[in-house]
């Protein structure tokens, strides 16, 4: 049972908490298959998304999740550099919190930004990606997708390939996969895979060794700006060694699945015929993202309601109006 006030990351969550989140998410999947995709669960609740970094998939997914639960969703896209705007992140968040939302979703380029806010504002905080730190809802949707396809979430060999150093998706996934009892391999060039990663999983600099006999191959998006900072000579050279093509995928288990958090760079980290091929779960990941975010909103917003004293419906009517009615 997940009883935390915030969802800041998957590090430190127990196996039971992780499975409970995934189980809850699974129950929400069906709503998106209905003709009328809306339930009244969070009617009258307000959810604010505060996106300091560009995001299409995650922002839309949260918005759809909130709306399918009947919550009112407001999105704020802000410049990542709060100082240039003149208002600090904390002041912006405090102002939003003063409007009494029931949950605040935040994406920010600074690692720890959601943790910073969670300590200072009176509102559940959901981390939608903080710098290179964590992206918990992405990892949860990855887990749900694996379980849907493979049927279990333990004793799997999962290869995560790409820019490990800067990847929040990796960090959230590694915490959860290890807690659930899976083997993690981290694959990439040494510039993007520091020695510290050895404590997190098996380190490989050779894609073929990294994916050999894997059950799951998770490809990461390569940020194009990495080549300018000399992490890489060129995108071409990166793709020569780390692009998942059919030949490389053939080394994984015959029924291995391929995942990618998106947006994909076709031909750089993943070949088109793999991204679009039978082993690819990329679109299922996106579909499951809505269910995962519905589950998180449901658990965090309802937790606040459960904690508040139950007020009988009649008491909620304003006194003067009640007199008139009476």
């Amino acid at each position, binding site marked *: 049972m997940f009883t935390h006030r915030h969802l800041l990351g998957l590090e430190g969550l127990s196996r039971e908490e992780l499975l409970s989140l995934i189980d809850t998410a699974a129950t929400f999947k069906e709503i998106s298959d209905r003709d009328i995709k809306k339930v009244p669960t969070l009617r009258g609740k307000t959810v604010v998304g505060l996106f300091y970094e560009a995001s299409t998939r995650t922002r839309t997914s949260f918005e759809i999740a909130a709306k399918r639960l009947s919550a009112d969703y407001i999105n704020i896209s802000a410049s990542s550099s709060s100082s240039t705007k003149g208002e600090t*992140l904390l002041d912006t968040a405090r102002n939003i919190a003063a409007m009494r939302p029931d949950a605040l979703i935040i994406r*920010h380029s600074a*690692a*720890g930004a959601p943790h*910073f806010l969670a300590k200072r504002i009176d509102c559940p905080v959901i981390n939608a990606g903080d*710098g290179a730190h964590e992206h918990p809802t992405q990892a949860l949707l990855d887990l749900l997708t694996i379980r849907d396809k493979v049927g279990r979430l333990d004793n799997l060999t999962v290869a995560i390939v790409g820019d490990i150093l800067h990847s929040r998706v990796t960090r959230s996934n590694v915490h959860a996969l290890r807690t659930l009892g899976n083997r993690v391999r981290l694959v990439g060039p040494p510039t993007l895979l*520091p020695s510290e990663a050895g*404590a997190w999983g098996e380190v490989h600099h050779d894609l073929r060794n990294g994916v050999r006999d894997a059950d799951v191959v998770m490809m990461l998006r390569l940020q194009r700006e990495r080549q300018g900072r000399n992490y890489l000579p060129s995108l071409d050279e990166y793709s020569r060694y780390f692009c998942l093509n059919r030949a490389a995928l053939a080394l994984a288990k015959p029924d291995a699945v391929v995942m990618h958090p998106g947006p994909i760079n076709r031909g750089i980290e993943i070949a088109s015929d793999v991204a679009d091929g039978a082993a690819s779960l990329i679109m299922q990941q996106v579909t499951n993202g809505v269910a995962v975010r519905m589950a998180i909103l449901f658990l965090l917003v309802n937790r606040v309601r459960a904690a508040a004293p139950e007020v009988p419906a009649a008491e909620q009517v304003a006194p003067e109006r009640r007199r008139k009615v009476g």
Partner: protein
Amino acid sequence: MGSILIAGGTVIDPANNRHEAADVLIVDGRIARLGAPGDAGEPDETIDAGGCWVVPGLIDMHVHLREPGYEYKETVQTGTQAAVAGGFTAVACMANTNPINDTGAVTKYIVEKAVAANLARVYPIGAVSVGLKGERLAEIGEMHEAGIVAVSDDGRPIMDSALMRHALEYSAMFGLAVIAHEEDLALAGDGCMNEGPTSFRLGLKGMPSAAEEAMVARDIALLERTGGRLHIAHVSTANSVDLVRRAKARGLAVSAEATPHHFTLTEEAVGDYDTNAKMAPPLRLSSDVQAIFDGLRDGTIDAIATDHAPHHHDEKNVEFDCAAKGIVGLETALPLCLALVREQALPIEALIRAMSVNPARILGVPGGSLADGAAADVTVIDPNATWRVEPDRFQSKSRNTPFGDWQMTGQARVTIVGGVVKWRMLEAAAEGRRKRNATR
């Protein structure tokens, strides 16, 4: 000025090879006599130092007093008030003020502010380069005449090796040490903590140890050619300690300092993005902490300095990436240092050398001795006093410390500068009690 007798304490004066029960008499601002207990005659004032250590005044050779320009963080007045409260009778202040201390006029301004504050002695450190820009040498001679005791571009590492070479050569003409903040800026990049397991876990950009070590090695290589004196500020890594140790073995004129936070905390203090654990150089690993202690014990590290770096709450109450680097140190240094004596068997003489004798020697300033006739800068330390760190009660204007709520053992009971009592812990405690009662 009259006379003060410090009675009943244990005098620890390594410069004069003394460690014994003795009274200390101060007459007209100077140490008058060191004698056996009870033979001091009739002083104007007697300080009961029973159970205390009486040591030459502590000298912090690396602080930021922020004046002129950043008076909202600290002033010469508040900074020196914090100094005497922490047991320091003198501080040397870095040049990164606004305007920067790169001219005699700014040096004089700081000196005048210190005279007006009339608390701890203040020794300004001049900039190596104009505007700390790392391009052209500042007028070191003019600043020397105005009172600087060393030169440093602290906070802005000197990336231009030729400039560093010339700084070492030129400052030697005045007998001034060049104090180097060792950090290869390209390698440190926009890192905000040590590069290691914790930065990897937290997704924060790291500064590798090599960013410091490469520059320590460079400057030792330059020193070998140029002569002059090199002082390495806030050594933070095991390899840096080793580089200094080997340079000293070759007889080079290099000295080094370490901060209490670098021998007390590891990178894990960053914990859950605590911006009070953000500083440059960053907190490192436990192996580095051990190496710094070893360096202090074998004399490789000459001095303990706080790098007292006050910042306003608003500059720390932000995302970790955006937070200002640095912590205040003057009011927490002494108990953290005493812990080395109590828990790790560092000889007390070694500690007093690192906190008083050696800083005086490196900067070429008076102090570090309780010899007859010396200026009466004296710190009376109660090694057993226990107290809790309450940042809101700091004398400093700023509260940016990772040691808030720590239980400490040991504190300065009395701080005497030039024969005048500048701080009494018992009075301060009574004052605090009065204030608390008044607000009830």
